[in-house]
């Protein structure tokens, strides 16, 4: 949340970076700008809105270098709550959180993100590499002997692929669906096909095959973007 990128001034800049705040009316202006845009991605900003009345005069409020709610808005990144960056003032709690008796309204600010970043989209080549490696690792030298075992391998491969893709590819806003088919090699004919209805600009799929003498395996990974 402390990131302020380019020309967009996040709420953080308004509260902590502006330096002013010593003029009357500043507090009111800041409160009105409660829903500033910010590029916060998955990080949520929580605003504590104070509803009580506080007895200090407006002068003393503005003398603090960082403004946190005299009946105003306290904004914290939930992850850094513990490291309160506010100075200790007479009417604040130690952790910079809400004061006793103050009702808390948690507001999750909108991010206004319309599409994924260049670095955060589903790259099929990347996923193919991951899935291919996992298939090789899991199935090298195995034989399709037992139905129950095959089921177990199947679910293991599924979970592994999903976990790896989540961990390695930086795609936070994507829903990942993995489907793995494992079959015995017995001179039968097989066709595995898929068709999708989605937004081709953001969504994609990757599919890998593996075969050895005794079994064949096909893994399909679908990545679907969710706003």
């Amino acid at each position: 949340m402390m990131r302020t990128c380019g020309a967009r001034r996040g709420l953080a800049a308004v509260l902590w970076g502006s330096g002013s705040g010593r003029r009357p009316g500043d507090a009111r202006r800041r409160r009105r700008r409660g829903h500033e845009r910010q590029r916060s991605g998955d990080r949520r900003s929580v605003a504590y809105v104070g509803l009580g009345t506080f007895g200090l005069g407006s002068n003393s409020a503005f003398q603090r270098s960082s403004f946190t709610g005299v009946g105003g808005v306290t904004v914290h990144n939930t992850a850094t709550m513990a490291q309160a960056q506010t100075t200790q003032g007479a009417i604040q709690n130690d952790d910079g959180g809400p004061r006793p008796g103050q009702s808390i309204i948690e507001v999750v600010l909108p991010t206004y993100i319309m599409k994924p970043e260049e670095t955060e989209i589903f790259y099929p080549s990347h996923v193919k590499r991951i899935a291919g490696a996992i298939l090789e690792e899991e199935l090298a030298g195995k034989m399709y002997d037992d139905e129950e075992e095959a089921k177990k391998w199947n679910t293991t491969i599924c979970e592994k692929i999903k976990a790896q893709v989540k961990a390695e590819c930086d795609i936070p806003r994507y829903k990942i669906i993995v489907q793995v088919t494992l079959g015995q090699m017995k001179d039968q004919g097989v066709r595995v096909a898929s068709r999708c209805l989605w937004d081709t600009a953001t969504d994609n799929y990757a599919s890998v095959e593996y075969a050895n003498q005794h079994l064949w395996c096909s893994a399909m990974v679908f990545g679907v973007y969710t706003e």
Partner: protein
Amino acid sequence: PPLRNSMAAKSEKGGEEAKKGEYTLNFTELQPTAVKIAEHAVTSVLSGEVYEAARVTTWSDKITELALDELQKLSDNFKYAVSCIIMQKNGAGIATSGSAHWDEQTDACAQVVWQENRTIVCILTIMGVAI
């Protein structure tokens, strides 16, 4: 917003929306209908057929196309992925499994395993992901 307006307009016409009176963003509600769609798609293409490697491509294309068309009419609040596995009945074993990282409350999958044919097994999986 455009999506919702179109759904409101569609609720006058038939299907799930009219009965519910509003659109749904939860695929689990539409799952039984999705299963029926899947069964219908497979049966209409494969019933009475004999496995032929040359025709398998056409069959899988037709099945997935049919399924997607019906799904699109069903609800446009979802993105769909339809996967179709057609295999010759040869005594060989096959296992399919899926794993997903999605919102469990709105997204779901519907699957049909069709074995009524003497020579063909078809597994059709529909995954509906809420927009």
